[in-house]
């Protein structure tokens, strides 16, 4: 493995970026006196900053590293995660769900589920999201370590430690406001850095057509569908029905409507219209990211396949090569391609992705634990001051947990993106079903919600692990896990709701779309 040497200019740019983020984060941290300031930024966030924060809360280091690796393996199909997997869901969230959540004045999505269904549902999803976020923190640390190993030859745990200290410093002090404002800055740096990789890489490859020719003319069977945005039905991982049902209809909407790290930013905007505007701007910015994230993987495939190796055994797409490491694709590309000066900007962009992703997830995990577990279950009489202190300590604790979790992620998954999506698929199906049923169908009961949650999650686990448990060959894509989990949760939720006593209109006021808060009593 080649190791890059950062020149003085590169180092200066990286240090400048880190100081700017740290300074900005600490500067906007002034005046935080309550949990509302800390977790919702006092509802004072500008919509454009929220939009940029939404982008980098979704797209971070794990995506830069992970999507580059997976686009090397599977091609432009990965663009669907930011095209149909995002834009459609974001627009529905902006116009249907977000204004409703915003008006309800909630801190977290589990809080809504608790009001609509019961405390069990709230606790389950708070715990599930917290565990998911810790696992996600692990994937982000792994991404950072993979990059630093290549760029600076740092050992795994040293990279994880340095990243943890930087992000812990301003996130624990500044809360959501520091997170969003630094994210907005990081978003701009990330776009510039990712664009530089694409431009310089395409120049080296001789342009898009030459790159495509180089990949297609190699005659390898595993690259046969690399330039198909909508792959055929016999694609082993991303068959288009799986992409449509699993990603477009379940994982995308569930992520953009129900992910605490995503929606929490919107709760901090000044008005309902600003919340909506933030989502639409986010959708517009995100339309460029499929190119920025996927093209580097294709460039690496065209230029450095001899160094990066084959991701499949004997070129069979159904047989992943266990020793192939997708996380090395982007670092190697950066080392090979970028000249001094540009390298510093790209490393800065990568750090932007690491920090913005990490700060978003630790802040949201802290919000969930304080709001949905500590206050809701353990100490309802907790003072605001006590919750604020706890929130800050939890940020530190989650950074440490995430760092510990990174070791497991590094050992178990060939790609951090695959790891992230697999974690998501376990409960995203049932979460989306409960949100849709709860908000759009007044007949849904608390028992229907409980049944949907249980059957959806059990189905996800069964579909994910049935082959290993029964000794059958092959693997099942996380897209199918999400889809069948959603279907099971919807069906069980509807059936059990119809069999149980419905809630009164008063109980549902402000919780169902058709019965708003301000409606007069009938």
């Amino acid at each position, binding site marked *: 493995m080649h190791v890059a040497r950062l020149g003085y200019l590169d180092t200066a740019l990286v240090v400048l970026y880190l100081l700017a983020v740290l300074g900005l984060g600490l500067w906007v941290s002034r005046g935080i006196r309550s949990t509302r300031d800390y977790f919702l930024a006092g509802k004072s966030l500008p919509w454009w900053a929220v939009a940029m924060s939404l982008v980098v809360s979704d797209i971070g280091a794990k995506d830069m590293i992970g999507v580059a690796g997976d686009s090397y393996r599977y091609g432009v199909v990965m663009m669907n995660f930011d095209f149909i997997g995002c834009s459609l869901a974001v627009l529905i969230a902006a*116009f249907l769900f977000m204004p409703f959540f915003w008006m309800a004045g909630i801190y977290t999505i589990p809080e809504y589920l608790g009001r609509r269904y019961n405390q069990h549902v709230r606790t389950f999803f708070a715990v599930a999201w917290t565990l998911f976020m810790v696992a996600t923190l692990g994937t982000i640390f792994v991404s950072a370590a993979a990059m630093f190993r290549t760029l600076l030859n740092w050992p795994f745990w040293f990279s994880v430690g340095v990243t943890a200290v930087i992000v812990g410093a301003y996130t624990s002090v500044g809360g959501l406001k520091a997170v969003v404002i630094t994210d907005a800055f990081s978003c701009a740096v990330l776009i510039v850095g990712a664009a530089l990789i694409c431009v310089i890489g395409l120049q080296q490859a001789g342009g898009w057509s030459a790159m495509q020719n180089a990949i297609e003319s190699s005659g390898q069977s595993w690259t046969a569908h690399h330039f198909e945005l909508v792959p055929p039905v016999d694609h082993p991982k991303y068959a288009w029905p799986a992409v449509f049902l699993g990603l477009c209809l379940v994982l995308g909407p569930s992520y953009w409507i129900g992910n605490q790290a995503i929606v929490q930013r919107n709760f901090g905007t000044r008005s309902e*219209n600003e919340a909506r505007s933030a989502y639409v701007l986010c959708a517009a910015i995100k339309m460029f990211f499929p190119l920025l994230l996927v093209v580097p993987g294709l460039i690496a495939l065209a230029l450095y396949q001899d160094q990066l190796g084959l991701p499949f055994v004997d070129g069979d797409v159904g047989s992943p090569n266990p020793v192939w490491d997708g996380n090395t694709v982007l670092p190697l590309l950066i080392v090979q391609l970028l000249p001094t000066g540009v390298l510093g900007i790209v490393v800065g962009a990568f750090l932007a992705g690491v920090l913005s992703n990490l700060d978003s997830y630790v802040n949201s995990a802290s919000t969930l634990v304080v709001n949905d577990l500590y206050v809701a279950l353990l100490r309802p009489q907790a003072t605001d001051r006590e919750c604020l202190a706890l929130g800050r300590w939890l940020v530190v604790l989650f950074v440490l947990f995430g760092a510990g979790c990174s070791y497991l992620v590094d050992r178990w998954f060939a790609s951090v993106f695959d790891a992230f999506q697999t974690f998501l698929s376990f409960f995203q199906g049932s979460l989306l079903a409960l949100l849709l049923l709860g908000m759009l169908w007044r007949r849904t009961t608390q028992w229907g919600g409980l049944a949907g949650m249980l059957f959806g999650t059990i189905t996800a686990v069964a579909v994910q692990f049935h082959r290993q448990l*029964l000794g059958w060959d092959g693997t099942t894509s996380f897209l199918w896990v999400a889809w069948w989990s959603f279907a099971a949760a919807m069906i069980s939720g509807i059936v059990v709701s119809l069999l149980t006593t419905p809630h009164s209109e008063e109980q549902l006021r402000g919780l169902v779309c058709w019965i708003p808060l301000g409606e007069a009593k009938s």
Partner: protein
Amino acid sequence: MNSCPVDSLGILDPSRYGSLLLGQTAGLGKWVFIGALVAVLIWLIMMPRELIGQAKVVPPWWRNVRFWAIVVCLLQILVYWQFA
């Protein structure tokens, strides 16, 4: 070879599920994706003004969030129309 018996029904295996339910038509996927986006586009256009806080005053187009949402949706349709 110890394959999953459910695969033969096309329930869990992507390669069989697609062919069983939706046929092998080469371009069908493209139109399903575009169809979903068109459905959202129509929903955005038809949405009553009072549901998006524009009951009394409709802002000029450059400040109208519905207009920009429609633009994003149209661009997505164009992407799948042209490149899928």
